[in-house]
């Protein structure tokens, strides 16, 4: 049964992907493509849609992992400040002129930032031998404010190029998307997905609690470490590609739990697919609804997502928080 649902999800995603390519302020007829259309399609639309898809995949999967590892239905890379920490780290890297690894420097510094912030949030959330959900969230929110403020500070003192990227990282603006970082983002996301899916049984056990996970034959710390690394890889990829976009990591796993169930072996891939489709759709709506003005994807995701999320919240059998 989950297989049919996943196949259906993939089908919907493909349809949204194609619509996002051909629909926009200028509707392109796939049959008779002229030079201008080709230019729009391959230089503007395709990179943008691919970036949206990849970011959504990364955020959806990262949210599913974080909610499981932290045993917290409100966890997501954005709320916990991991996204903004990754943005800040990448921005600092650019500002200090670290280009040792070429373009790869951006996702790499973002990854380091994501790992450091994860640890920091963990340290603040840790008390008496366990992670406390409320402490964890408050620590994340606090750190997130700090990182945003620092990004803003960077923005106000930086050069034009720095400014451009800092804006991107604060508001998640897909209009600036291009091909340059797509290969690195792709590699990070694939690695993150492979690691997390191969550890999804352990994630199921960790959702029950550390003691269960131990009793079921998992090394709790090792599994948690690998799952965090996979989450950090995907968060870094999404931040490098198009900045911080909230809500997807929080919302998509809940919706997917409703559709495919809570088993992480299905939930992680489903959240990835659902996240990709959702961000593509949000971006498509944002740039088509009143051209030439563009509504940022983050706003669209919130407008579509919140009511559905609130509806789910009312259903006790889906979310018993």
């Amino acid at each position: 049964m989950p297989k049919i649902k996943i196949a259906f999800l993939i089908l919907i995603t493909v349809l949204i992907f194609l619509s996002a390519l051909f629909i926009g302020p200028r509707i392109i007829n796939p049959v008779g493509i002229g030079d201008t259309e080709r230019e729009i399609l391959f230089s503007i639309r395709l990179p943008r849609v691919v970036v949206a898809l990849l970011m959504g995949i990364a955020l959806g999967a990262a949210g599913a992992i974080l909610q499981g590892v932290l045993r917290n239905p409100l966890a997501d890379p954005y709320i916990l400040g991991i996204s903004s920490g990754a943005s800040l780290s990448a921005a600092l890297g650019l500002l200090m002129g670290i280009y040792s690894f070429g373009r790869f420097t951006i996702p790499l510094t973002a990854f380091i930032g994501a790992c450091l912030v994860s640890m920091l949030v963990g340290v603040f959330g840790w008390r008496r031998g366990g992670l406390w959900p409320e402490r964890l969230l408050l620590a994340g929110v606090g750190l997130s404010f700090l990182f945003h403020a620092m990004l803003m500070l960077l923005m106000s003192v930086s050069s034009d190029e720095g400014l451009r990227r800092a804006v991107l990282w604060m508001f998640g603006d897909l209009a600036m998307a291009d091909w340059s970082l797509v290969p690195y983002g792709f590699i990070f996301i694939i690695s993150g997905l492979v690691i997390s899916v191969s550890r999804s049984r352990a994630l199921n056990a960790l959702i029950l609690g550390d003691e269960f996970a131990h009793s079921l034959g998992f090394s709790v710390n090792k599994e948690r470490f690998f799952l965090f690394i996979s989450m950090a890889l995907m968060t870094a990829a999404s931040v490098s590609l198009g900045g911080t976009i909230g809500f997807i990591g929080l919302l998509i796993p809940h919706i997917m739990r409703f559709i495919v169930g809570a088993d992480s072996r299905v939930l992680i891939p489903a959240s990835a697919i659902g996240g990709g489709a959702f961000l593509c759709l949000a971006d498509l709506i944002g740039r088509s609804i009143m051209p030439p003005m563009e509504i940022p994807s983050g706003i669209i995701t919130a407008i579509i997502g919140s009511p559905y999320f609130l509806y789910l919240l009312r259903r006790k059998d889906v979310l018993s928080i």
Partner: protein
Amino acid sequence: MSSASEMPILELSNVSFSYPGSRMIISGLSFSVHNGEFIGLLGANGSGKSTILKLSSGILRPYAGDVRLWNKPLGTFRNKDRAKLMCYLPQLLDINVPFKVRELVSMGLYPYDIPPHITAEEALYAVGLSEKSESYITNLSGGERRRVFIAMTLVQGAGILLLDEPLANLDIKYQLEFLRLLHDLREKRGIAIIMALHDINIALQFEKVMLIKDGKILDIGNPDAVLTGGMLKDAFDVGIDIKRQASGEAYISYKENI
């Protein structure tokens, strides 16, 4: 049921442990468990029952001393191999993720590459929850949840079960059925069980009990010998009498009025 001559399957020798900043200290704890033994772990709140089970299962590591499983140090086992031999069921089962009952019970198969003796369906039947197989765990009552996790431990099929107050939240009917189920398992598969519990009347039915106070073993052995008024006064700080019915069955009576 005397098997003292056999090799113990679980052995703690001179184990010491304490939580940082806590008064409860375990020092020099030693006991052993043999095949087919069914041991009741009794003691007041905070006496160290859970800690002893966690030390036995390897969730907590002792500062000093030795925990051996089948005569090998516990730490030398691969995690999966350990999980096939020993299973720990925590006291708190706070699950807020809507897993289906069947999915949860099947997690007992995680240590295995080839599924062993019992299926999720059989385990659910054994705990009387066949019809709940497709329900969400979050919709079940506390007692039903506990039975789901008991079914999961059945599926895991380990030879040693470390159960932290498995009878909590269970109706008396399911308490008795659960105990019968464990006795059955012991008969058929020779598994050993250590169970923390509160009900002294139930402990009186066990063949062996271990009475704990302040992280130390007050006494271990047959309940007739261990669970005396004096011992219970020492362990629980309450005046309790052990009485016997004409049929020989023992039960407790409180000396103090409520």
